[in-house]
């Protein structure tokens, strides 16, 4: 029973962080219909940047956070202006391949070139842990979950209730009509990329302090974001949250109950989920079913 409770709590805590990472992918997809596989690469790059600012440079946390935010915003704007704006109107497959190549080779490559790519430890949250009944939470996981959920809620509320959020939904519906109604579509695309990169920045801090900062962090992030996004359906933000909890739980349960028999099964779990979701519920739990026209 204790093992079960421990696995349950760890799964939920992990799921919250995955939800935030997946949110970045969903946000960009909602506005610009680009399936952003570069998210993991950006996350890995920003994680190394955070580590570099905090540990070798020894800057205080708030200065590092300011610099990180600035870099993330700049990153989003650059990606939007120089890569994806010239490609508006191309098929989804084209942008998919570009994000694939950028996110798996170019961006992590630059990160490795600058910072070496060796595993590093980053201290953002206080160390120590808290015990409730039979379950022990480490502060890092607990704070990560709280921050991730809070940021997730903030992003969702912004998307739901602000004018910019409304415009983003409008543009995702039909960018041509939005433009003719006087919406600045370019600006909306830029905002969606900036939001995506900001969520990658937060994910970088959280994942980087939960696990070590290393060159596989980007792969880890995108691999967990993919089943979340697929399960939530590419269009649904609440779906992403529920999907994330499910993915976190299934991963931790696989780690607790299957790993002793089949070692390394935990890492395999997200991929198995991906294939199963794609085979049996390709539109996810809450995604829209599309009707195709010639």
């Amino acid at each position, binding site marked *: 029973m204790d093992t079960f409770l421990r696995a349950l709590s760890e799964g939920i805590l992990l799921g919250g962080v995955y939800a935030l990472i997946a949110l970045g992918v969903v946000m960009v997809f909602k506005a610009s219909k680009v399936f952003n596989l570069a998210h993991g690469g950006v996350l890995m790059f920003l994680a190394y940047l955070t580590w570099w600012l905090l540990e070798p440079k020894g800057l205080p946390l708030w200065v590092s956070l300011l610099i990180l935010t600035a870099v993330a915003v700049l990153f989003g704007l650059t990606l939007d202006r120089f890569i994806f704006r010239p490609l508006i109107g191309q098929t989804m*497959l084209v942008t998919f391949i570009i994000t*694939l190549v950028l996110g*798996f080779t170019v961006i992590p490559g630059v990160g490795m070139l600058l910072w070496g790519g060796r595993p590093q430890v980053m201290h953002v949250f206080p160390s120590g842990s808290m015990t409730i009944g039979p379950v022990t939470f480490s502060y890092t996981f607990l704070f990560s979950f709280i921050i991730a959920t809070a940021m997730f809620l903030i992003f969702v509320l912004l998307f739901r209730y602000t004018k910019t959020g409304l415009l983003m939904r409008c543009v995702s519906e039909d960018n041509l009509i939005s433009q003719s109604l006087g919406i600045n579509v370019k600006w909306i695309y830029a905002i969606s990329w900036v939001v995506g990169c900001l969520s990658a920045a937060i994910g970088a801090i959280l994942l980087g302090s939960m696990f070590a900062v290393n060159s596989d962090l980007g792969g880890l992030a995108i691999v967990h974001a993919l089943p979340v996004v697929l399960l939530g359906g590419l269009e649904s933000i609440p779906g992403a949250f529920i999907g994330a909890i499910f993915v976190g739980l299934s991963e931790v349960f696989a780690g607790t109950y299957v790993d002793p028999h089949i070692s390394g099964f935990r*890492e395999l779990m997200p991929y198995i989920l*991906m294939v199963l979701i794609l085979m049996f519920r390709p539109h996810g739990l809450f995604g829209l079913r599309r009707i195709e026209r*010639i």
Partner: protein
Amino acid sequence: MLPGGVFNTKYESDVAILRTKTQWFLLALGIVLLFLIPLFAPDYWLSQLTYIAIVIVAVLGLHVLTGLCGQISIGHSAFMAVGAYAVAILTTRYGLSPWACLPISALAAGLVGLIFGLPCFKLKGFYLAISTLAGWYIIIWCLKYDGFSSVTGGFIGLPLDPLTLGGLDLSSRSALYCLAVAVMIVAAFIAKNIQRTAAGRAFVAIRDNELAAEVSGISIFRYKMLAFFIGCLFAGVAGWLWAHSQLRVNPNQFSLLDSIWYVGMIIIGGWGSTSGVFFGVAFLKLLEIGMTDYITPWLGDMLTSIKLQVHVATDIVRGMVVVLFMMVAPRGIYYLLERLKIYYRLHPYAYWAR
């Protein structure tokens, strides 16, 4: 556009791949030259050229899948791994002849490919690519997994016996090169002709407009699966060649980045053209050789602080080249050459080339 003075007077000459005597002559000369290379090329280049020929075989399969049918696979190196492991396991554990394993490797890769192609029953576009990404990871995980190591050799992999053909030793560099080039030529011939069959036309119809193809009576699921199967057959054959050129298989030889580069090669060469595959593979591979042999050592000496990780510069440059091609010349080298050819043939009247 045909060269000046060449007219198609018969239906056969219209569908022929090679139309003129000059083209036949050039092709024959090219093939003879390819087989003469081992006489004067140094060992290093011979092994690189062998590698290029093997990659061309694999990418020809991807060309059928991606270039013709429009389905992206980013697990192609894992399907190659299935072919390579099939021959390694069957020859070392069961003592089968490697030549008998050639069709078995191809079939094994094709069948495994079908499993990860299954989601195309309901899906299209990049969803399928994600399924193949998962497929890559699952296959490589199985090859590394300890529980299967009595069969696959786990992390260490399996050694192979040198290839022989009726007492003839084929394990020397030049013999392997000739074998790889011969397989490459056959594969190119098959790939080129798949394009001209009913199935090939169905693939192209699916690529261009899935719904329209379905309405015209093409069974989408069947043809997508067929494309997957054919693509993975080529990958299996490439894996068979790879296993014999390295005389050892292990899971790290088949990286995810390789699969991404295979897609990049299709893009650089030009979607949907068989000759584009050759251009794409040669371009990206020569770029890699140039970077690792000349540029990165120099860069490492210039900037000593990044000397340890300077090798990733190769990946960065290759990635940027693929992205640039997609943005600036999305139809690849093939189309650029075609344009050049038309320009040359029409030379003084360039304004006709529209």
